[in-house]
């Protein structure tokens, strides 16, 4: 990871649909998305929403080399129109667009023209794809007729009537819009001063799109029962009017047009405006929550495919990454038996931790021999398994010290607790982009010619570097700060406070069987902090544990979160969810509130 950009390792945004299909790995989220209904994908940045959306398009579906591809192509009963949200659509909210602050009506019109023009552009691409993949042989006369119609209905400047030139004319429209904005900003002082003579300013993307689709179907005599799906990706970046309108449109039932939307886990719109999920609207939440192990198999499939790419044959991930003693579900029995690794760890800690000693005695487990005998076998699930990660972490990190440069200065039998295939599957929270980045970085240490385990220390280094890089990204998020008097509170600083709090409690504090590792955003947290914590949700830095069941979430207040597992190597906390605590308690019980000098990069 140290030689890669954190996000760019594999970002579907940069790839053509055909390229996305080359490495696409099917999962249950995709099964939900291809159904013949409105669908909303919710998830943090990098969780694979764009990949799924692009995999709805015909070029991707027709390039996908998978045994399921043929049946899925037949199953999908809509033509997808992929529309990527552009941050510049947000003509009112963002500070660079404050230039239009004197013109509230005009700025909304500009935003709508930008959206409409982009939808038209994407629709043209979809028309081209349908002609290419479904209407063979294509008839040039039909395309000319369609283009003439679009030029007229979309109020385009006269151009050669084919779809390629219609797209060129749409590009020119944005040039013209940009010039109009500049002239307006410097020569008008209020909305009433602005002259809008071009009719295209008043086109509506939905009705114009619907009309264009009917025209297409009439001219090409295509299947009238086939629906069209407008796939708006990364809606959290879109202007509020568009988010409100699209989430409201999900109520419609008798539609020619379906909506496939992707957004952040928490919606910014008002709760009254969104449709209620049901038969006609499916929600897909693309992160692990509750006790879900949803992404384990998906992650394993990705890892296996990367190993195959590297070694040109199927390789068991355990051979390369080994198994992690804390998370492994194999050889459980021997692990807790006399002489087993966990047996030893418990004895070792019990000798120096009076809290564990008390707990074991209370549970009638012999601290000198916590093996699975007839008497304590029943305790395996209720006690030993539960305390296992805490025992390992306390043993490891209580003897762990860092010098001023953050280097570990006391060596132990194991270089870290973060290695092994189980860590790999769990630490990424189902985020394929992170997983691919980490695996590729670890595999750089591997020798192509020999298939053997990569050292635990090398793996641990990559996990740690990844955590640091993720932390650096959080530090650079603009406006993720709260200013009070002479102090600046940064998002990265707040996350560190939380991580340090949990470390002190889980690792350094009195032994607890169920310590705190999650937090509830309580009423003591002010709105300005809520604002920056929402950015953390979008980045995947904090993970919503209790989302509303089959419903949207509109607010992070009173919700339960944990830190992304990706931070675990940095804050030295186990990859496990324990009890909850009010967030304010993790922040205010500190002796020192983060100060400006402490929290800067």
């Amino acid at each position, binding site marked *: 990871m*140290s*030689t*890669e*950009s954190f*996000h*760019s390792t594999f*970002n579907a*945004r*940069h790839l053509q649909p055909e390229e996305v299909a080359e490495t696409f790995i099917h999962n249950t989220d995709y099964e939900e998305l291809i159904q013949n209904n409105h669908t909303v994908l919710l998830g943090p940045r990098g969780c694979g929403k764009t990949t799924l959306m692009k995999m709805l398009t015909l070029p991707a579906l027709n390039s996908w080399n998978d045994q399921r591809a043929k049946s899925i192509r037949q199953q999908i009963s809509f033509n997808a129109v992929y529309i*990527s949200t*552009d941050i*510049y*659509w947000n003509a009112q909210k*963002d*500070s*660079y*667009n*404050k*230039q239009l*602050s*004197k013109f509230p009506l005009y700025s909304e019109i500009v935003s709508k023209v*930008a959206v409409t*023009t*982009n939808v*038209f*552009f*994407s629709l043209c691409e979809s028309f081209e794809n349908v002609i290419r993949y479904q209407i063979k042989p294509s008839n040039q006369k039909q395309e000319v007729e369609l283009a003439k119609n679009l030029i007229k209905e979309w109020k385009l400047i006269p151009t050669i009537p084919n779809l390629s030139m219609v*797209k060129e004319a*749409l*590009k*020119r*429209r*944005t*040039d*013209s*819009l*940009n*010039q109009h*904005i*500049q*002239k307006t*900003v*410097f*020569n008008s002082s209020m909305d009433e001063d602005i002259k809008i003579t071009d009719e295209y300013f008043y086109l509506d993307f939905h009705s114009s799109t619907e009309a264009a689709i009917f025209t297409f179907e009439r001219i090409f005599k295509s299947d009238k029962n086939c629906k069209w799906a407008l796939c708006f990706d990364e809606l959290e970046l879109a202007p509020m009017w568009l988010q409100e309108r699209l989430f409201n449109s999900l109520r419609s039932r008798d539609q020619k047009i379906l909506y496939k939307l992707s957004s952040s886990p928490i919606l910014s719109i008002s709760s009254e405006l969104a449709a209620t999920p049901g038969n006609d609207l499916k929600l897909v939440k693309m992160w692990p929550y509750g006790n879900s192990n949803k992404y384990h198999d998906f992650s394993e499939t990705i890892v296996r495919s990367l190993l195959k790419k590297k070694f040109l044959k199927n390789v068991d991930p355990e051979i390369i990454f080994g198994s992690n003693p804390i998370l492994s579900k194999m050889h459980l029995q021997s692990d807790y038996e006399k002489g087993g690794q966990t047996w030893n760890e418990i004895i070792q800690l019990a000798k120096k931790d009076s809290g564990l000693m008390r707990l074991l005695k209370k549970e009638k487990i012999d601290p000198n021999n916590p093996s699975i005998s007839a008497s304590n076998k029943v305790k395996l699930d209720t006690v030993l398994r539960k305390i296992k990660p805490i025992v390992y972490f306390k043993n490891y990190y209580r003897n762990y010290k860092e010098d001023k440069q953050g280097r570990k200065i006391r060596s132990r039998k194991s270089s870290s607790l973060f290695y092994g295939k189980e860590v790999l599957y769990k630490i990424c929270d189902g985020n394929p982009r992170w997983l691919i980045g980490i695996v590729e970085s670890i595999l750089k240490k591997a020798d192509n010619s020999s298939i053997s385990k990569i050292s635990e220390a090398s793996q641990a280094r990559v996990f740690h570097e990844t955590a640091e*890089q993720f932390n*650096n*990204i959080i*530090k*650079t*998020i*603009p*406006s*993720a*700060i709260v*200013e009070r008097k002479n102090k*600046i509170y*940064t998002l990265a600083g707040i996350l560190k406070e939380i991580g340090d709090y949990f470390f002190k409690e889980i690792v350094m504090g009195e032994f607890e069987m169920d310590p705190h590792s999650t937090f509830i955003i309580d009423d003591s947290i002010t709105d300005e902090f809520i604002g920056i914590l929402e950015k953390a949700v979008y980045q995947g830095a904090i993970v919503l544990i209790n989302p509303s069941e089959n419903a949207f979430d509109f607010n992070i207040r009173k919700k339960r979160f944990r830190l992304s597992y990706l931070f675990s190597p940095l804050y030295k906390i186990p990859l496990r969810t324990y009890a909850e605590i009010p967030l304010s308690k993790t922040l205010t019980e500190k002796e020192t509130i983060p100060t400006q000098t402490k*929290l*800067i*990069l």
Partner: protein
Amino acid sequence: MKLKNAFQLDFSQIKNEKFDLIFAASGYEKRCTQLFEKINLKGAKKILIAFKEKDTETQRIENDKKFKKLGFESFTAKEGSYVEIIDILNKVLEDILTKKQLNVLVDYSCMTKVWYATIINYFLNKDSNIQNINITFSYTPSVFAEPQDPMPNKYMGPIPGIYTISASNKPTALIMGLGYEKDRGKGLMEYLDPKTTFAFYTNPALDQKYVTAVEKNNSQLLSILGKSNVFKYPLGDLRTTDSLLTSLCLSLRNKYKIVLAPLGPKPFALMSILLSIKFPEIDVWRVSAGDSGNTYPRSPYLGDPIICKVCFERASIPLQFKIINPEKKEPVFMMPKKVLEPVL
């Protein structure tokens, strides 16, 4: 208005020039007033824009006094305010806009990118009688000051007016001009998440300590990008800088949406803004810690300022018909064949 050409000049060529209009900025840096102690101010309308931030610093008060003595009409604006600059220009330029020719001097040494980009955009877009306008940009380099730990970003995005709404799904190519604060460039790259990234940094510089600091504080980024994506430019040689930047943009513009992000010395930022005027589909971004930004003393360097004269003329045909033909390579932004020796 459209950009006709641009020249790098020697300071001696503008020292005695008569300007119609002069813009200066007053902040806490010592170099703010340096230029005006050695040029001809006679007959010019003199406008001072002073920062609303950090206005109680001793040097700032000193600078304000000097500007007042030199006869500047003073206004204040926030560091990132586009609207305030337009309001100031609307207030003071009514008479000026009736002229057909205009000769303007902008000392951008202490201005923010938003300020001088807005001044340029104002003349390009404001309805006026002006047919030709020459804007001379002057930059007084400073003595090296050690970099400080970067403050949290308050703003990361396009400069108002230097970005365009587009209707294509082209991937982004990020071209950064690196500064010397730690990992600012890498942070922007992670945030913007471009498909491809290039970095420029000044080498040689007036003081090689600056180059060492840039390389040290961007070491991770430079290693990620590799030699093929990193370009070095001499600080005082605008022609070379422009030539490198223009060639790169021309090679990328058909395939990518280009974002220029000048994070370092201001002459690179000026070149970036002028390039985006030449090719409007190029966006220019800035990263700012706003009023919480670090304070650097920045004393003037004992040498001549770096001068760039840019000529604009009224477009003879409506701009919307000026479609750029991707097949036809447009001439790069013109510099004179004979240029003066770099300041270095």
